[in-house]
């Protein structure tokens, strides 16, 4: 347990802090770290006065209670019954627009990514969308995305109870200021610096008065994470769980 916190564990712990108090968090496909963070949030919230956080992990059989097909997540979101969700992006810009389609012209363009998934919809409807992208480079964080899969908040009088709440990368954590519609750097991960964040970010952002070092998960979180949460996420992401387990000080049985 005294083993150093890995970067993955730091990210999981950071996301779980962003999820504190949510009633229902959903996790999309191909999202092992957000999934682990959601499961950690649930484990931490059990027995609390507000009741345990509900977690719906797409692709899981055990941690997903939906019985109305793939549309159920979207219906719940529009009803305001999903409090938090995760989106990434091949490109993300300073207006919080995200691009999951491709670069340099559409449709043939340069790089082509899989597609927009549910982003164009959920970004408008889920109040606490957490943008998560580990790669923190100017390739990802661009001045202006080449294609808007899902639009950041803007003055268009469109129904938009949702939107970006924070953005976590491999280097740092940003808040998103909904009034000024700007990212605000809150903390930098251990081993990294504000200068590095500036160098690797292609858009302007604000900086909090006190930029801290991103806090590691506390002992309770770490115990839950490396035990129950690791087992739970392994049902949906066995390869991720296996790699994570290999970093633990005392290897558990597979």
């Amino acid at each position, binding site marked *: 347990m005294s083993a150093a916190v890995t970067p993955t564990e730091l990210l999981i712990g950071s996301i779980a802090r962003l999820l504190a108090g949510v009633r229902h968090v959903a996790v999309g*496909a*191909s999202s092992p770290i957000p999934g682990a963070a959601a499961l950690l949030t649930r484990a931490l919230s059990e027995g609390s006065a507000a009741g345990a956080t509900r977690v719906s992990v797409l*692709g899981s*059989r055990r941690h997903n209670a*939906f*019985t*109305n*097909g*793939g*549309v159920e997540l*979207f219906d719940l979101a*529009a009803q305001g019954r999903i409090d938090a969700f995760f989106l990434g992006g091949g490109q993300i810009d300073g207006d919080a627009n995200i691009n*999951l*389609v*491709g670069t340099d012209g*559409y*449709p*043939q363009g340069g790089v*082509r*990514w*899989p*597609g*927009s*998934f*549910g*982003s*164009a*919809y*959920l*970004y*408008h*409807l889920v109040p606490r969308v957490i943008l998560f992208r580990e790669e923190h480079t100017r390739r990802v964080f661009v001045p202006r995305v080449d*294609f*808007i*899969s*899902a*639009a950041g908040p*803007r003055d*268009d*009088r*469109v*129904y938009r109870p949702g939107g970006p709440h924070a953005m976590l990368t491999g280097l740092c954590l940003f808040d998103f200021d909904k009034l000024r519609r700007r990212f605000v750097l809150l903390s930098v991960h251990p081993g990294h610096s504000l200068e590095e964040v500036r160098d690797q970010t292609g858009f302007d952002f604000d900086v909090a008065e006190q930029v801290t070092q991103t806090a590691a998960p506390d002992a309770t979180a770490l115990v839950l994470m490396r035990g129950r949460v690791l087992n739970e996420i392994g049902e949906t992401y066995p*390869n991720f769980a296996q790699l994570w387990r290999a970093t633990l000080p005392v290897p558990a049985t597979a």
Partner: protein
Amino acid sequence: MSVVNNLVDIRALAALVPDGAKLVVAKDESGVAMAATRELVRRGVRNLHLVTVPVSGLQADVLIGAGCVATVESSGITLSEFGTGPCFTRAIKAGSIRMKDATCPAIYAGLQAAQKGLPFMPLRGIIGSDLLKHRDDWRVIDNPFGTDDKIVAIAAIGPDVALFHAPLADRFGNVFIGRQRELMLLAHASRKTLVTVEQVVEGNLLDDDARSGATIPALYIEAIAHAPKGMWPLGYGDAYPIDAAWMRAYVQMARTAEGFESVVAQWLAGDGALKPLVGAGLGELAGAAA
């Protein structure tokens, strides 16, 4: 209810997908008729308008690679942990398929409109996305009960054929889908529904009080083929895992058109492991097989 004679073999099932059909298929978790997809490739079906609900992986990639597809309407084509779809990416760059980029709930809305015989369904979100610029079947309208409240109208997607894999069928033409409820949507929305199943059971599923509520009645089903392990090389719930070695070999080989031809030749020949043929295209393989 009389016994319905709609159990056919898998080649006969694949023959019911005409060239040029708007074909709707499910995502990996819901049930993908891979064995039937192989028969489509074997037959050389052409000019499909492939609608994925809401995303697809290997199935879309092989159909695109094999030249079966003219249009893809999808919210995402990806092999997930195995990577991007190599044939999809190549076809986009070459401009050899028309891409209708969507967002997941819009695919559901378009199918629900078809299910309901409606011209469109309204949908929140989307406004501000560049997706909207490229879709003349999505239009911004006024919410008639709001004030200055824009909302998107999604035109119905009316597929000619739905094709998917399910756990059970009976001899009355009914298909049990369990928790994969969106398969019911595919069947309801489409003019013709083709299903492969792991198992054919005795008795009538509609008489089974436990299962009847998650059963698509024969009314919607054109044909059923018994295809045990019909999702291979994909996995199916607790029944069998994805064939990860096959998938890794696929992603490697399908990076080139020649490699993909070798994949197809081996896939059409059997259910075994893929062997990379270094320097060998389909021509050589076909020669070796002759």
